[in-house]
């Protein structure tokens, strides 16, 4: 077991664990944000650079600090490693710069975007970015693309995290989209506007950290913070059948996978569950989905109401 210290908090982890995974084991403020890393997708990470941390001491054997900030999702821990995340001003500064770069070409059309309210980039820029931009040039723009009749792709919003490419590679047997061109010109695309049609293509929507890949059947239907998420499951031959239903009143507006507090889905669901089963009767409801308290989805929802016993003090004696 390797002992690693992150922001003065120590934990013992298996060799081969990355700094990000170790930080998530500790939890709380020491967890670096991540846009491109997805724990269920192999080889993901290392693209967005938001999870950069400072390694103040390499290991017990070689206590020299690492010369540059490292991507914590791709760096494995060593025994006796000392890592600084939010305690290092250098890291906070670098992260601010990364957010600025991610937002260079991002259209900031959150009032229009369906992802607003559950968007990782929105959370990231609120928490780590500045509220001004120094970018004066024209933003790079593309037309939106329909990938089949269920998914819509907005290249303007894409931050090129590659998550959807890995999801298609690892969940389905036939990937038909990828990154075309290089550098600043690179874009996610199918080759000559092909439709992506396989049973798990809908998971591209869930793994996308921004609003680039959105559910076309939910497009402009409602804002996520007006919906009530409920955990539900059903018997499905293709997938785990564990999903979250988003209700408004009695109506199911959309079905998604269950995102954890890092915005990652662990039980991927098939397109039949996601797009075709939008009746309460198709599902077994488990109960309300727990959403992190800082999320706008919790706004105006009353939770944890404890009825004080003094309302009717003699009730027990009456019974």
């Amino acid at each position, binding site marked *: 077991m390797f002992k690693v210290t992150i922001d003065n908090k120590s934990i013992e982890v298996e060799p081969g664990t990355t700094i990000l995974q170790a930080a998530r084991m500790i939890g709380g403020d020491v967890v670096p944000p991540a846009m491109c890393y997805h724990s269920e997708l192999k080889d993901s990470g290392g693209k967005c650079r938001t999870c950069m941390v400072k390694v103040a001491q390499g290991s017990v054997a070689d206590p020299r600090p690492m010369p540059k900030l490292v991507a914590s999702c791709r760096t494995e821990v060593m025994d006796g490693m000392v890592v600084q995340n939010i305690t290092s001003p250098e890291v906070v500064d670098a992260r601010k710069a990364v957010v600025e770069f991610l937002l260079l070409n991002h259209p900031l059309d959150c*009032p229009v975007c369906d992802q607003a309210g559950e968007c990782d980039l929105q959370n990231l820029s609120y928490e780590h970015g500045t*509220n001004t931009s120094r970018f004066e040039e024209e933003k790079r723009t593309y037309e939106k693309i329909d990938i089949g009749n269920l998914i819509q792709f907005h290249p303007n919003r894409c931050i090129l995290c590659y998550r959807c490419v890995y999801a298609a590679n690892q969940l389905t047997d036939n990937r038909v989209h990828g990154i075309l061109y290089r550098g600043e010109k690179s874009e996610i695309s199918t080759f000559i506007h092909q439709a992506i049609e396989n049973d798990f293509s809908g998971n591209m929507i869930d793994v996308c950290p921004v609003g680039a890949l959105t559910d076309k059947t939910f497009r*402009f239907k409602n804002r996520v913070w007006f919906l009530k998420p409920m955990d539900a499951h059903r018997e499905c031959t293709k997938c785990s059948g564990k999903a979250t239903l988003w209700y408004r009143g009695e109506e199911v507006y959309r079905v998604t996978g269950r995102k954890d507090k890092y915005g990652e889905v662990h039980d991927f669901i098939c397109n039949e569950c996601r797009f075709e089963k939008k009746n309460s009767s198709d599902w077994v409801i488990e109960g309300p989905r727990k959403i992190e308290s800082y999320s706008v989805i919790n706004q*105006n929802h009353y939770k944890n109401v404890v009825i004080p016993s003094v309302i009717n003090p003699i009730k027990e004696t009456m019974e």
Partner: protein
Amino acid sequence: MNQDQKKISLTNRSKVVSNKKMTLMERFYLPAIFKGMSITASHFFKREVTIQYPEVKRPFSDIYRGLHVLKLDDEGRERCTACGLCALACPAESITMIAAERKEDERNLYREEKYASMYEINMLRCIFCGDCESACPKEAIFLTNRTVPSEYERADFIYGKDVLVEKKDSRIDVSKRQTPEVLAFKQDKSKSHNN
């Protein structure tokens, strides 16, 4: 008992009622009547405190929070994108909306690809706090110095887009609601959220 009452008195103005006999002057009544009438008569010569509404109307502050308006932009397109932030901010939950996607031939009607096909404010629920105005990221909704008129039916107080959206030929000036600081903030391109 008297002392107890004084102890709990908050204003020190409480008086103990007495049943003493009236004097001759008091029993005569007329002096008291003339005293009262003189106060009444003196008001004939003082400035009126009431006004003849609706012929005369009191001036409203430029930043009075009254009936809402949904602004059009300079080219006459609707600014509202139905983002739902006003409805989220509304403490009285008086705002509802349904969003729709702009069609290709509607580019001169709506500024962005999403717009509100239905936008309703329930004026009976609204408390005119102005939170919707502060929440709006598109400068679409403003409160104005107009008031909500009275109606006979409750349903008539639910205002739709036909009332709320300003008319192209009779624009409503909200520039007074925007202080120099607000305007400076809007002119700063680096802080612009409208690309």
